[in-house]
């Protein structure tokens, strides 16, 4: 058995990059083009304050998109992230406002609630063999109803927990660098993204995400306890959704029980725009982050330009198609 032709150094480098991110993130170019386009179209667009507003607007959807990315890479889907986020916020409200506990318990409650809900979805999918679409659709409805039941269809305000609204609105970075008052919500988004990317690319859990999405049966036949790992992945995604719940609750300084429906579609859209395939096995956190940013820039830019609402929708639809098309073309070329 002879050795084969060895590859040239250049492609080794690109291969290392590809191995790290599992796929080159090309959506980035679309994002830049959008930013440039809006700056030209509207002089008010490129202000620091507006850039911060866009980042702030990305935070919740970005965190949700990260959660969904994990599930989608396994070949599943999670429709429940929107209402699960609300549910976590409501539980935090119960812990902080109704039970009057200190803030840290509220934070733990949100993440834990998310993880438990995620584990439930995961169990439906893994143990009961329910298609992820149905399992998470069911969870979506169940959690939506339970949020209303638990809160008594009333918002729960966090006025008794001073500092709660700082979780998202305050700016630790701004305290150090007053010139860059990046809100904590954005900071948290980037931390969550970094941790998720690390988990995805450097740990067993991440490896099994990709493996399950690639060929679940072959993973099972390798003696891996696929059920357990699947539940773990859904639970991790749930915990991340819990963080999104904290962010939105902190930003609105209240848990709004009726909110949440529709956020799942936006999160999934961000993931797919970011180049993750809905059939599983491939995907990047960075891509989803950029996908979420593209959506936020698009919405903000059109609003700043004061485009009429109905045309905003039309243009958003068209640009999403174009951005992904441009991506496909670039990907084709580069391969």
């Amino acid at each position, binding site marked *: 058995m002879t050795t084969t032709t060895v590859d040239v150094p250049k492609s080794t480098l690109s291969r290392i990059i590809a191995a790290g991110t599992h796929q080159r993130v090309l959506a980035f170019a679309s994002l830049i083009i959008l930013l440039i386009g809006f700056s030209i179209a509207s002089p*008010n*667009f490129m202000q620091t*304050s*507006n850039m911060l507003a866009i980042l702030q607007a990305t935070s919740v959807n970005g965190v949700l998109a990260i959660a969904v990315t994990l599930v989608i890479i396994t070949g599943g889907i999670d429709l429940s992230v929107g209402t699960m986020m609300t549910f976590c916020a409501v539980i935090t409200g119960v812990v902080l406002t109704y039970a009057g506990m200190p803030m840290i318990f509220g934070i733990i409650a949100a993440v834990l609630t998310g993880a438990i809900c995620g584990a439930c979805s995961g169990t439906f999918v893994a143990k009961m063999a329910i298609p992820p679409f149905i399992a998470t659709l069911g969870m979506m409805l169940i959690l939506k109803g339970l949020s209303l039941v638990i809160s008594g269809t*009333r918002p729960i305000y966090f006025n008794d927990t001073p500092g709660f609204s700082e979780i998202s609105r305050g700016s630790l970075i701004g305290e150090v660098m007053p010139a860059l008052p990046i809100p904590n919500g954005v900071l948290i988004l980037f931390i969550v993204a970094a941790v998720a990317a690390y988990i995805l690319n450097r740990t067993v859990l991440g490896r099994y995400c990709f493996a399950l999405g690639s060929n679940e049966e072959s993973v099972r036949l390798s003696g891996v306890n696929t059920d357990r790992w699947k539940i773990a992945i859904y639970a991790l995604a749930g915990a991340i959704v819990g963080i999104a719940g904290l962010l939105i609750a902190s930003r*609105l300084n209240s848990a709004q029980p*009726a909110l949440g429906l529709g956020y799942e579609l936006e999160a999934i859209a961000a993931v797919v725009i970011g180049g993750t395939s809905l059939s599983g096995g491939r995907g990047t956190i960075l891509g989803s982050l950029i996908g979420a940013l593209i959506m936020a820039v698009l919405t903000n830019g059109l*609003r*700043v*330009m004061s485009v009429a609402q109905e045309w905003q929708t039309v243009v958003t639809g068209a640009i999403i198609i174009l951005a992904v098309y441009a991506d496909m073309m670039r990907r084709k070329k580069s391969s």
Partner: protein
Amino acid sequence: QDEIYIPLISKGFQHQFWQAVKAGADQAADEYGVRITFEGPDNETMVDRQIDMLAAALANKPAAIGFAALDSQAAIPLLRQAADAGIPVVAFDSGVDSDIPVATATTDNVAAAALAADKMAEFLGGEGKVAVVAHDQTSRTGIDRRDGFLNQMASAYPKIEIVSVQYGAGDQLQSTEVAKAILTANPDLGGMFGTNEGSAIGVVNAVREMGSEGVTIIGYDSGKAQTDAIREGLMAGAITQNPVGIGYETVKAAVAAMNGEELPAIIDTGFYYYDQSNIDDAEIQAVLYD
């Protein structure tokens, strides 16, 4: 079953406004010893879902029906079916273009929004730039409040310029982002009007997060976040309807109609403007919810 059953089909369910209507209806139901149910679709575009709700309500052979039509024409065949079966229909929140309802318990949203415009103009001294964050582009209440405000501005305050009207679906987060974009695009904005609770709070959030100064905010409806903003002085004032009254009057009218009593065609439940000065008045407190 001798229990008297009156279903109320509303335009929404989860929002605070509708919960307050429900509270009023529950209160009346207690007083008159009838059983009510209160249902509404997820959002105000789902005309056909509301019709399905009406159909399910009719299956239970109710004594009377309360109905807040999303589109008054679409429901007419079913309402006629109810009328033919001798079930009185009481309209609430907004009217039904037909003679079937025995009474309509409603707020004049156009006049209420015009009052908001008057107050806004007063704060701005009759000139400046104003934007509207509305909750819906197509629903009756959305259109009435937006147009009531815009028309009053156009006719009475020619020096006030409406720079932007955008929609946030009544979702607090989305309305926040909408309002922030408006503030970015119009650094010299003088005032903003939020056409329902979610929109108004979105405007407040936006101003808070952007640290904008000199923006006069007028809101609509109540809710804790909004009353807090008024007490803090972040929001200049707000219009409130009397949702509890709407619910109460609807059930009361339904019971009366059931018993064959004469009813006025319109039961105007009124609206109020409240601000820091009168928020604690008993009359205002009675119509606020949180």
